[in-house]
């Protein structure tokens, strides 16, 4: 892998190369990641990417990172990860493999890096070619006035997958993720019943049918009435448990009466 074309005659090139590297450093923000930087560095070798010297490239990269460090330019972590990896690759390429060593060889790793660079470079070229094509709305045009003949109008509803995803995302990112709440106004909760009864029993010293605690809005409709009856009964039990009231029922299915134990019952 090591290079034979590295003569002393290349001293001038080496200087030019170093200058180029310095120019690169100033532009460190211009790179889209370490692979992009490696691709740019590889161009200075002025050879086909298939013939690139990965070893030399690794050295170029490490020089770059070293230089950046000496100039106190902070490099993003992935650049340093790449530097560490290239240093490892370099050692693999230079040193004979240790007996019993596992994992891919230095050559395999170098070949893959060269492949990655070639592939990235190829995609860049194709992207540029794509953007340079005769594009709709710039070079080619569609009909300016699509014709609309108004006749029988049928309505269809449409939505795109994008709409669907947006809708789902919207639901999922609502600020408050509220727990389940029954949004049915026909339900009279026990909390409501308790609230209502607490306000009323303070004034009663005699037995009262608990049905009389049911609010007006819940008397007529059978569903609402059932809900209110159940919650009022549960609330009454709650009050008894708290020692604030007494309950009595003369016989099965007869009205249930409640009596306050008075303010001293606390």
């Amino acid at each position, binding site marked *: 892998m090591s290079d034979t074309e590295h003569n002393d005659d290349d001293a001038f090139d080496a200087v030019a190369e170093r200058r180029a590297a310095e120019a690169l450093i100033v532009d460190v923000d211009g790179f889209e990641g370490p692979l992009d930087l490696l691709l740019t560095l590889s161009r200075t070798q002025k050879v086909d990417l298939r013939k690139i010297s990965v070893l030399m490239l690794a050295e170029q990269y490490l020089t770059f990172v070293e230089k950046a460090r000496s100039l106190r330019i902070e490099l993003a972590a992935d650049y340093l990860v790449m530097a560490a990896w290239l240093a490892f690759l370099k050692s693999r390429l230079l040193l004979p493999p240790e007996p019993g060593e596992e994992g891919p060889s230095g050559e395999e790793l170098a070949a893959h890096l060269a492949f990655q660079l070639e592939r990235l470079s190829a995609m860049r070229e194709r992207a540029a070619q794509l953007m340079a094509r005769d594009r709709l709305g710039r070079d080619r045009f569609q009909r300016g006035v699509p014709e609309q003949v108004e006749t029988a109008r049928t309505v269809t509803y449409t939505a795109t997958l994008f709409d669907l995803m947006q809708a789902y995302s919207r639901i999922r990112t609502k600020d408050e993720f509220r727990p389940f709440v029954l949004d*049915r106004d026909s339900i009279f909760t026990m909390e409501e019943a308790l609230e209502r009864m607490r306000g009323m029993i303070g004034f009663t010293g005699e037995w009262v049918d608990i049905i009389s605690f049911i609010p007006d809005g819940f008397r007529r409709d059978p569903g609402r009435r059932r809900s209110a009856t159940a919650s009022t009964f549960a609330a009454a039990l709650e009050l008894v448990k708290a020692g604030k009231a007494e309950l009595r029922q003369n016989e099965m299915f007869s009205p249930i009466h409640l009596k306050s134990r008075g303010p001293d019952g606390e």
Partner: protein
Amino acid sequence: MENDVTQPGEESLFKAPPLAEQERMLEAMLFASTEPLTTREMAARMPHGCDPAEALVLLRKRFEGRGVVLTRVGDGWAFRTAADLGFLMSRETVETRKLSRAAIETLAIIAYHQPATRAEIEEIRGVSVSRGTIDQLIELEWIRFGRRKMTPGRPVTFVVTDQFLDHFGLETPRDLPGIKELREAGLLESRMQPGSFLGAQSEDDEDEDVLDLEEDQSDMFDG
């Protein structure tokens, strides 16, 4: 186009493009323009020395009896569908409307959580689902009734249909993008913590019993 010997640059400097070429230009301009064009407007866009009036005669002749004809509109010219072919445009007037927000949200929930009960949909959306919304989605054939849930009350469930998959270009419901992909595509707001979402999701599952119980309750009061 035809037998051009001259370069385009030279051409415009020395002499007008051949008439056939001018005709092509008119054709393209009139096709793409959003409003009728006058010969003056067309001349202004064409290379120096062109005569739209002359080319227009040729172009008009070329489209005589065709599916579209070159028609005079006020001072200008425009392509119009031949009068006898108007019947072909009638289907173009199918009016497409966007689904309401309630409908698209309900549909999304069914798609992602199917089989979904009405109570589950309401739980996730945080508001009750109107009958009309479900009816509309069923009518569009995007959802249908699934199996009843084997929970107290045996509530009906909704699932998406093959027509749904077809409309949204999915081969299976598994192809629906997941939360991670939604987030990566920038569709999920970042302020939502991934953890809290995950939590909510798994909570749903745990809450299933509770949910069903509540639905049960509501059935009881419907009596």
